[in-house]
């Protein structure tokens, strides 16, 4: 893992398209350094840069490493995310600590990659999809499930993705129209030669992973982005 650095960062922009979903952009005097698919820790409390790191929580980087600012998107899931939603405002200074995680840096074939995302779980993929390194993937597939069409707030990034890798196949499922993503159907389409990346609600990750394991897929071909 690259050197973990602490960044005093400023909240540049907060978007709140739905009551429980927030997209936040941070800037810092120091250049952010991370790889696609990695995550950061965000702390709200005062910190002098010396002693005990304060309470913090993990968030995937949504922006690509080439961008000067970092963007994350989160939905309110518990006490800490509620607190973040309440306390963050544009101009506020916070502490970020990054990078962590190895979602895409573990060795994997660049052929037959299937990316499965539920809701804000798409964010770690976006950091890869909007990075030049994504051009090397051969015929990647994205299955993206959102509550409804209006919850698909990632069109701008996905358009950019198509420019970086025009071989990508994007399959969007809206729960109110298409129902939930179905791992059985995805597996039927791509079988056990594919590498499956899964990111989204913990229950979805768990059930999809268990299904794939039950199909005797090698564990190294199942990559998940999950936290407690």
């Amino acid at each position, binding site marked *: *893992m*690259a*050197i*973990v*650095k*602490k960044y005093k960062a400023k909240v540049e922009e907060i978007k709140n398209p739905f009551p429980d979903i927030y997209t936040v952009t941070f800037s810092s005097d120091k250049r952010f*350094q991370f*790889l696609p698919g990695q*995550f950061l*820790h965000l702390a709200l409390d005062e910190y002098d*840069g*010396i*002693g*005990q*790191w304060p309470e913090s*929580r*993990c968030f995937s980087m949504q922006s690509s490493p080439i961008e000067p600012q970092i963007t994350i998107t989160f939905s309110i899931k518990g006490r800490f995310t509620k607190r973040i939603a309440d306390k963050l405002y544009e101009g506020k200074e916070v502490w970020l600590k990054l990078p*962590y*995680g*190895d979602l895409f*840096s*573990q*060795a994997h074939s660049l052929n037959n990659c299937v990316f499965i995302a539920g809701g804000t779980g798409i964010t770690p993929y976006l950091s890869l999809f909007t990075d030049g390194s994504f051009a090397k993937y051969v015929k990647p597939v994205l299955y993206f499930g959102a509550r409804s069409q209006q919850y698909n707030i990632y069109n701008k990034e996905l358009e950019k993705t198509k420019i970086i890798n025009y071989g990508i196949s994007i399959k969007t499922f809206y729960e109110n129209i298409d129902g939930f993503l179905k791992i059985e159907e995805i597996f039927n389409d791509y079988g056990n030669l594919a590498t499956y990346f899964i990111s989204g609600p913990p229950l979805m990750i768990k059930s999809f992973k268990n299904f794939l394991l039950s199909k005797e897929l090698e564990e190294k071909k199942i990559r998940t982005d*999950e*936290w*407690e």
Partner: protein
Amino acid sequence: MNHKEIRKQILGLTTQYYTERFANEKFEKGKTRVNYAGRVFDEKELVNLVDAALDFWLTEGRYSEAFAEKISELLGISNVILVNSGSSANLAAFSALTSEKLGDKRLKPGDEVISAAASFPSTVTPIIQNNMIPVFVDVDIPTYNIDINMMEKAISEKTRCIFLAHTLGNPFDINAVMKLAKEYNLWVIEDNCDAFGSKYRGKYTGTFGHISTISFYPAHHITTGEGGAVLTNDEQLAKIIKSFRDWGRDCYCAGGENNTCGKRFSQQFGTLPFGYDHKYVYSEIGYNLKMTDMQAAIGAAQIDKLPMFCKKRKENFNRYNQIFEKYSDFLILPEATEHSDPAWFSYIVSVKEDAPFKRDQIAKYLNDNLIETRNLFGGNIVRQPAFIGKDFRIAEHLNNSDYIMNNTFFLGTYPGITREKLDYFESTLDNFIRKY
């Protein structure tokens, strides 16, 4: 006064203390020892050290982060893992290649590893400690680096890795080594402990191999007292190296941190119960080789001086060349590897076989006159007591390594060697050789 004001006062006094205690050390010919190496510092190192002590964070902290970041930026390597010595760096680097996480690429007991016999032991001992077979290849004189032709012939079906030092700051033939590594699918560890700041074809040494190591022992290019670092651009290797450094644990939280991975209580490892605390999950047979924040604080100040230190080492090397040139009938003078720009660790000299004096005579004379010399570490390392009876293979012969063991010594080029010291050295050497 509050604690911030007290700290400010202490750090101010520390600067003053430096000036009083260290700033005006004088050299007196024949009275002051001309060390072959030593720490060179100013008030910044002392202030950082005291500052870190006042933090009392003790283990990896803000100075470790700053120091690692500076090394990373200088060399353009994404992962810098600080450890407690250069030898620990070599141990962690080599051990990491035995990890089962590397699958078929991992090193296994009985595999052969190419190295040089004229070397420092801790370039070689990790190979033996991991139950593998060092294959000793002879070196070239006057570069004192591995003989590439012999090296290629030494590669067998069992060879899996090349583990080599840039001898005394002089880069080995990196292009040739990397070409062979590619051709035979071998790992390369660059032991850069004596060469931090050296360049090969315009690029820093320590940036070519899969992994490289640095030492911060006081004799080296910069110091943290004891200390070292392991460097790699490979994210998977970095994680494994960090695990070997930190007891073999799977968790990568820094000291005092919890649940950095966000999965502390929700993973399955081995046959442990599901959700066993990740902090105490061990996926490697590791060590505890961490650096303290006080050491890193010194390093964070030292590294800013590296360009100046390297410049001074090169100047001193050139001055030695001038001094020794007139005695080239008796002595073999060192040569930089082609396409390299060494930040010389030292000035290495071999006494010619037909010279009227022996290495030990000149070394004794210089040491009697308070000028320190050193042999090229272990000489021919296979003749060291610790290596007798161990499993290793010698490629062809080690004639030059034996020659070095009997006839070679080196002198300090470190930035503490001043013009006055070199002038004194020249007159002392003249006095010795005049007798012959």
